[in-house]
């Protein structure tokens, strides 16, 4: 709650950066410039941003297939990210990982992940290491409503709560697991209800309100840092696009889509910033334009970067 003007403008800039990055991907994917699958974070920007605004570089996150937002929010470098999406040597993973596996271990980003639900045990392990080393760091596992049906969710929450690990299980409930609405894949509506089964607190917040996310994640992260163990935080949100680029999302009711577009987290924050006189419209326009320029530059960097040498195929399989 103690968000100062500068912090809030920072948060705004991060959210705009994610939006600009993802919007650019829509464009270049449609133009056939990038291969593979891309799952975009458009509409969910408030979650990653609100959570990561509470984290330090030493803290860990485990991300998902829908990972670009988490990476940017945790401080990922736009050029290295974009180059990875383009499969270039200058990418975060030298072009070996692609969108679904971008990582920056130095920033505590333990990778996007192609396996739904795989991040929770990994974050649990990172939290174990933090506790073991007693370095005051924490871990956050991002995962979706669909992922909360994986065995890994249940095993990770059980272990982390039993061992009282400094980890936050951060559910991005966007109401869908590909074509399955939440109603059709689980018998509950508030995933935070599952916390009580593991003896930990669970809370649900409006995931399209970055301040609400910041507060709830902040309280959970503080609990973790103080040694009070894990927390399950559910952020209710909505993905604007299909599951991946190329999925028209025909299963969504257009009425729901329309309602959720009205709750778009970015205009919501803008309204607050203007009302508080933290910015005038021209300031916001400038921030947006700046982030778009950053993304253009990242694309230029990516496109002008070299493709990997085929011999790269054989490196990095084992540590030497």
């Amino acid at each position, binding site marked *: 709650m103690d968000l100062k003007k500068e912090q809030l403008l920072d948060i705004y800039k991060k959210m705009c950066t994610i939006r600009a990055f993802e919007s650019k991907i829509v464009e270049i994917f449609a133009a056939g410039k990038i291969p593979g699958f891309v799952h975009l974070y458009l509409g969910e920007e408030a979650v990653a941003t609100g959570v990561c605004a509470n984290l330090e570089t030493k803290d860990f996150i485990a991300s998902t297939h829908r990972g670009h937002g988490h990476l940017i929010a945790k401080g990922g470098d736009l050029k290295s990210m974009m180059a990875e999406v383009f499969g270039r040597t200058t990418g975060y993973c030298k072009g070996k990982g692609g969108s679904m596996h971008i990582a920056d271990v130095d920033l505590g980003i333990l990778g996007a992940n192609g396996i739904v639900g795989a991040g929770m045990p990994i974050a649990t392990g990172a939290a174990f290491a933090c506790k073991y080393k007693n370095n005051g760091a924490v871990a956050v596992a991002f995962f979706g409503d669909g992922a909360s049906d994986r065995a890994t969710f249940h095993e990770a929450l059980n272990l982390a709560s039993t061992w009282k690990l400094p980890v936050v299980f951060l559910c991005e409930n966007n109401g869908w697991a590909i074509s399955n609405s939440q109603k059709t894949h689980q018998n509950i509506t508030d995933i935070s209800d599952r916390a009580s089964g593991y003896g930990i607190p669970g809370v649900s917040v409006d995931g399209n309100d970055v301040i609400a996310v910041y507060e709830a994640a902040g309280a959970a992260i503080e609990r973790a840092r103080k040694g009070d163990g894990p927390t399950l935080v559910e952020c209710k949100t909505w993905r604007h696009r299909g599951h991946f680029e190329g999925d028209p999302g025909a299963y969504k009711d257009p009425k729901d889509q329309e309602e959720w577009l009205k709750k778009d987290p970015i205009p919501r924050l803008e309204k*607050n910033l203007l009302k508080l006189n933290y910015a005038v419209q021209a300031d916001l326009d400038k921030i947006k334009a700046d982030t778009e320029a950053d993304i253009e530059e990242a694309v230029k960097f990516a496109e002008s970067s070299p493709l990997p040498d085929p011999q790269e195929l054989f490196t990095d399989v084992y540590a030497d």
Partner: protein
Amino acid sequence: MASVGIIANPASGKDIRRLVAYGICFDNLEKVNIVKRCLLALAVTGVDRVVYMPDYYGIVPRAVEGLAKAHHLSLDIVEADMEMTGTQIDSAQAALAMNQAGIGCIITLGGDGTNRMVAKNCGDVPLLPISTGTNNVFPQMVEGTIAGLAAGAVACGLADFPAVHRTKKIVVLKNGKPVDMALIDAVVLKDIFIGSRAIWDEERIRKVVVTRGEPDNIGISSIAGNLHPIGITESKGMAIDLGPGNISLMAPLAPGLIRPIQVAAYKILEIGEEINGEKGPLVIALDGEREVEVGEGEEVSFQLTFEGPRVADPRLVLRQAVAKGYSQGEQAMKKLHRLKEEN
């Protein structure tokens, strides 16, 4: 034909007070259980129709489904005529629909916040509020079966004053125009955002206006309770300015969270009296939740009235009803026997 409404809020009991204090985790399955008990009780009263608020979890339909195999409920259970939005507005919409449908009593499951939304639209329909929220003053800790029996008695016309009584409220005015209301407390916060809604940090509180306050309340109204208690039926309220002053006291602001409070000044309010002059930017919390953002250049005031919802006290209601033969004699037994046969 006697009918009862049920407004069960699936979102209550899950807010951030579980992290920053020790709020009860109230999962929706337990709300389903409570509704089951209410329905089983209502079935033995003279009530024949239950109207419920649709919600995204389906609390009432799940309760009905859970009972269907083992019990034959001689109740007509129907959804309120409204469009579900999945937000707190639903509670107000449901109350409106029930008011218009001539319901005899509304059972609510939720906290102060839920009841506040219901109170906006329920008119003269008495409420029987069951507590499922976190820091509640308005609803009571009442067992579901008893709540059902009491609501049935109210709907059948077996209870009146003082078992069913009018409550106070605070009208919130922005630049002179009413914009919202509170049942228990309106709080002026130094915050600028609504954010995660709940309040728990006394350092952010500037001013408190209450309709009542007892030392055994939890939440902001406990400040009044520990200063100068005001009862539910007393024709007065209180305004308190927080800040450096002569009075310091302790108050349980949230479950497990007893905080030191510095009172700069306080004032007993008469019915109809207005407190003016709070200038934005600030946020107003109503009944424990940040609700109204007040921008720069805007001004808010608060007015105490005795025009809050009518509320049924289950113990007093049942006493009155028992005195009228509610639980004895042929009528009561006939119903029970019939139910037994049907099952």
